C-alpha cells in the first residue's frame, strides 16, 4: 500500500509516523504495568537500561570512520579518569574533528 505525497497524503504519513512513535514511547510502560516488580525484574531493568546505551554506541563505533572511533575512545578515557561528563564529551568532539581534519590533510 502506498500513499501519494499530496498535502493530505503527507499529513496522513506524519500522523501515522507520530502514532507509531507514540506507541513505542507508551508501549514499554504500558506493558510493565502488567508486570509485578520483584528484585529479579528490578535487576533486569537496571542492567537492560545501561545495556541500551552500550547497544547504541558499540555498533556506532564499529560502523564509524576513525574520527568517530577517536571521539568515543577519548570520551571514555576522560570520563573514566575525571568522571566529569562535559569535559569528556567536549574532548571527544574535538578528537573527532581533529582526526578528520588531519586525516583529510594527509589524504
Amino acid at each position, binding site marked *: 500500500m502506498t500513499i*501519494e505525497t499530496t498535502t493530505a497524503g503527507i499529513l496522513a504519513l506524519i500522523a501515522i509516523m507520530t502514532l507509531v512513535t507514540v506507541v513505542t514511547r507508551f508501549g514499554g510502560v504500558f506493558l510493565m*504495568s502488567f508486570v509485578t516488580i520483584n528484585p529479579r525484574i528490578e535487576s*533486569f531493568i537496571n542492567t537492560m537500561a545501561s545495556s541500551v546505551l552500550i*547497544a547504541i554506541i558499540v555498533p556506532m563505533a564499529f560502523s564509524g570512520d576513525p574520527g568517530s572511533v577517536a571521539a568515543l575512545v577519548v570520551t571514555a578515557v576522560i570520563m573514566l579518569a575525571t568522571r566529569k561528563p562535559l569535559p569528556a564529551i567536549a574532548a571527544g568532539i574535538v578528537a573527532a574533528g581533529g582526526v578528520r581534519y588531519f586525516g583529510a590533510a594527509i589524504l
Partner: protein
Amino acid sequence: MAYSYQLSFSKVRTEFFRLLPISFFVVAFGAAFGLAAVQKGLEPLQALLMSATVFAGASQFAAVDMWGSSVSLIPLMAVVFAINSRHLLMGASLYPMLRDISPGRRYGILLLLTDANWAVSAQDYQSGKRNLEVILGGGLVLWMAWIVGTWLGVYFGGLLQDPKALGLDMVLGCFLLAMALGGKKSPRILVAWTIAAVSSLAAWKWLPPNTHVVVGALAGGAIGFFWLEKASPAASEAGEERQT
C-alpha cells in the same frame, strides 16, 4: 489513590537548563533534518509539523530518505517502529518511578521521552536518585531545540557547511557513552555490557537493520535477570520511599 512521586516544578526548571547545552547541538541536527526534508519535497510547515509531533530524529531522517512521489506505508511504519523500538525499553526502565505518578502525567511525560533526557534519568536512578523531572524539563528543551533547528533548516538551509568535519555528529554518541560510564560499575554490569556489545554487533551484522539496539539491550538485561546483586541501592531506596 495517592501517588507517592511528587513532581517538583522548580526541579523541572533546573533540568531544563541542565540539558540546555546539549540542546544547542540538537539545533544543528534539526537544521540538517529541515534541509533534508525540504530537499525531499516536504513543505516547510510539514517538516516542522513532523518534528513537533514525531520528535525522533533518526527515524525522521530515515523516513524522508524513503520519500518520493509516493511512500510505501508498511516499510515506512516498519522502519519508524524499528528505529524507535528502543523507546519501549527506555520507557520500561523508568516504570519503577512512573508507576508512582498518575497515569495522565505518566503518559504525558512519556511524549517527551528521548535518548538524552532518558540517559540522564537512568543514570540518576542507578545512583539512587529518582529523577522524572529531567524527562519533562530536559525533554521540553530538547523538543524546542529540535523544532527551532528544523525551522532554521527549512528556511535557511544547513547552519554549517559540514557539521561532520567539526565532529558534531558524535555529540549524542559521546553524551550517551559518558552517561553509561558515569553509572555504577560492577562485575555483573561489565559482563552485561560485554554481552550487550557482542549481541548488538551480531544483530547489526546479521539481523534486519535497526534491530541491534533492542537485541543488545535485551541480551544485557538477561544477565541482570539471571544474576542478581545482593542489594541494589536504587531498588532499596525506592522501596523505602514507597513505604513512607
